[in-house]
């Protein structure tokens, strides 16, 4: 049991901090909740030049072969200031490792350098109107036609699909499969292909982050199928263990925490500074404790990955816990701000231009995205506690 980082790791953190500091001074970074998903290709290019895209990938695939602990240090520093990682994040975290794991030599040669150089960005095309938590019920059909597949169907909740070059799509290749999870495959789709129609779905704040994507006779070459035909869902579940418990699950709204602490130090109510009010202190302390616990759980998952272990139970538990923390942070921040907690961006007197109430609304999605808390608890119950299932 040892909670200290090595000198090299501390030095690396310092290196990342200096880089980000310079970027902040140059005005590249807008430190506000949820901004880390912003697409900024030139920033992603700089990260790539540093070797910070694909840093955990094996060297033979063009990566740096560095540890998951190194990567979590990098991500932590980026999230602290919400550096814009959107243009390379999914390729780096998810698609690249999946191609390394399951892809053909040709696919690896083609896509990995493009991801590493931050030349291409990806979106995920998983959920459908009738397949949310029950992802295995996806209906989008991929039918073989000579050397191609023809894809037809509708995808929903596709973050950044309007900004991405490629989609990572789950589609049905064997509609007659006795077990639904053995009839799906993973495809790479060029988002500029004829028949791909991306339409915005505005979130409850009226913002355009996600989309619905209609696939109408989209022709995809057969070598865009990744891994084995009909093994797509199984592959996807394996990838999930790797992507599930990054610090982004904990720190998507981290700037709000710093701003809340600033707020209670700078403001008075009922004749005392808010920071001296025992009720306020109790709530801030609870956030501090929960944040620290979540942060350590994320580091533990990274460490387990470095040990070559698949942290399926740990990652699911960690993600469920961390996303609930993010939501509590937004709730606590608005509550402590009192009447100011309702002032939205653009309003006179809005502290931090309304970041707290804006984030309170946005935070509805935290406990849903990438597997709801309830789905995750089910995974922990069955895989972690070996509780029985009726199915």
């Amino acid at each position, binding site marked *: *049991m*040892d*909670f*200290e*980082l090595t000198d090299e790791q501390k030095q690396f953190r310092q290196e990342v901090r200096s880089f980000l500091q310079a970027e902040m001074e140059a005005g590249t970074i807008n430190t506000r909740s949820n901004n880390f998903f912003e697409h900024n290709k030139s920033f992603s290019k700089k990260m790539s030049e540093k070797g910070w895209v694909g840093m955990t990938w094996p060297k033979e695939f063009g990566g740096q072969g560095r540890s998951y*602990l190194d990567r979590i240090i990098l991500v932590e520093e980026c999230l602290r200031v919400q550096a814009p990682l959107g243009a390379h994040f999914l390729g780096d975290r998810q698609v690249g490792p999946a191609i390394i794991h399951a892809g053909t030599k040709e696919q690896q040669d083609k896509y990995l350098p493009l991801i590493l150089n931050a030349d291409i960005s990806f979106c995920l095309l998983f959920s459908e109107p009738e397949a949310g938590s029950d992802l295995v019920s996806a209906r989008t059909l991929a039918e073989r036609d000579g050397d191609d597949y023809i894809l037809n169907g509708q995808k929903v909740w596709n973050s950044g699909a309007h900004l991405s070059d490629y989609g990572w799509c789950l589609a049905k290749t064997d509609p007659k499969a006795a077990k639904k999870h053995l009839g799906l495959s993973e495809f790479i789709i060029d988002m500029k292909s004829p028949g791909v129609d991306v339409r915005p779905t505005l979130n409850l704040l009226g913002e355009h982050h996600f989309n619905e994507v209609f696939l109408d006779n989209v022709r995809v070459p057969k070598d865009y199928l990744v891994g084995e035909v009909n093994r797509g869902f199984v592959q996807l579940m394996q990838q999930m263990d790797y992507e599930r418990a990054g610090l982004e699950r904990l720190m998507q709204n981290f700037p709000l925490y710093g701003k809340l*602490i600033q707020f*209670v*130090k700078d403001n008075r109510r009922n004749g005392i500074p808010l*920071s001296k009010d*025992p009720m306020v*202190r*109790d709530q*801030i*302390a*609870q956030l*501090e*404790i*929960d944040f*620290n*616990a*979540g942060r*350590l*759980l994320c*580091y*533990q998952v990274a*460490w*387990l990955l470095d040990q070559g272990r698949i942290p399926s139970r740990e990652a699911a*538990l960690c993600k*469920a*816990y961390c996303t609930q923390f993010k939501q509590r942070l937004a709730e606590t921040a608005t509550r402590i701000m009192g009447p100011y907690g309702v002032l939205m961006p653009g309003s006179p007197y809005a502290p931090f231009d309304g970041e707290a109430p804006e984030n309170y609304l946005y935070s509805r999605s935290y406990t849903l995205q990438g597997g709801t808390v*309830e789905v995750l*608890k*089910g995974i*922990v*119950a*069955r895989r*972690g*506690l*070996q*509780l*029985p*299932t*009726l199915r």
Partner: protein
Amino acid sequence: MEFVWNEMQTMLKDSARKFCENEFPPSTVKDTISGASAYDPEIWKKMAELGWLGFLFGEQYGGSDGTFLDMMPILEEMGRVMAPSPFFSSIIMGGLILSEGADDRLKELYLKKLCQGELIVTPAVLEEEGSWMPSTFLTKATKMDKNYLLQGRKLFVADAEDADAVLVVAQSGEDENKSSIFVADPKSPNVTLNPLKTISGEKMYEMVFDGVEIPADHLVGEEGKGRDIILNVWPRMVVGLCGKMVGGMEKVLEMTVQYAKERHQFGVPIGTFQVIQHYCVDMLTLLETSRILTYQAADRASGEGPCLKHAAMAKASCSDAFIRIVNISHQVHGAIGFTEEHNLHIYSRHAKAWELMLGSAGDHRQAVAGAVLDE
């Protein structure tokens, strides 16, 4: 970073589990709760032979200079079985206070015997106010010619009846806010003991000192340094208790998951129900978050740097978590968990006792807030 016990710590944990399960079966723990069983000096001797009593203390006193982190597996195992033992009061509280605060001569006198299992020493700190660090202690030590005269009333003194020495914190000297620690003889005719009846069966006493003479050389450390000594030892006492709580929580989770797999209702194991599954995962989450904060604090407490905030985070987490865990466990167990025969109440009793011992969650959150907001 490393998130597993090393080889030595794993060996300690394994042997501690065997020892604790042998020596402290649930029947013994229940007898302690009902008052039918008392402290067993034989077990104390065995702990000395295992090296547990001297584990944290200097080699010159017969100890083994172990780190606090290395002690955690032992504490966890004692918490798993809710071992009724003066180990915590005598080693983690009394022993650490002596080892950190006393001069060599006092250590020679007391710490050596403690390591050998020939002594039980317990601190007497709390008074009616119920605080570990009140601004003024009402118990007074008045300097006479050669001796101090101790006058006052201490509450919540653990294991006082079995103790051979008591570390009494008392106000002394001119300054009302200054306190000192004295080694007193609990068998002195001017000491009166009144047992309190506690929810966990842990033995606590009111202890009245009515003009007890203390030789001047039985002052622990310097006069007026009582608060500093307690503050120095405080994070380790707190984290030590957290270690026991982690062990207890782990056991309750195991009992509950086991029951959910075995108990059938509506024709199926109740563990197939999502409600029960999510309850169990909530318990696991409470345990794992408390555990990781506790281990971090123990690691910190083994080093040189400050660790007050880390200890406070751990205890705030453990205090809340243990209560919620036993609450859920009772709900899953249903009526059977409400019986005397079932072991669950051993844990619900200790969860409450330890939630409140050495500071509640709210107390520790105030300490955390101090680190976040005042520094």
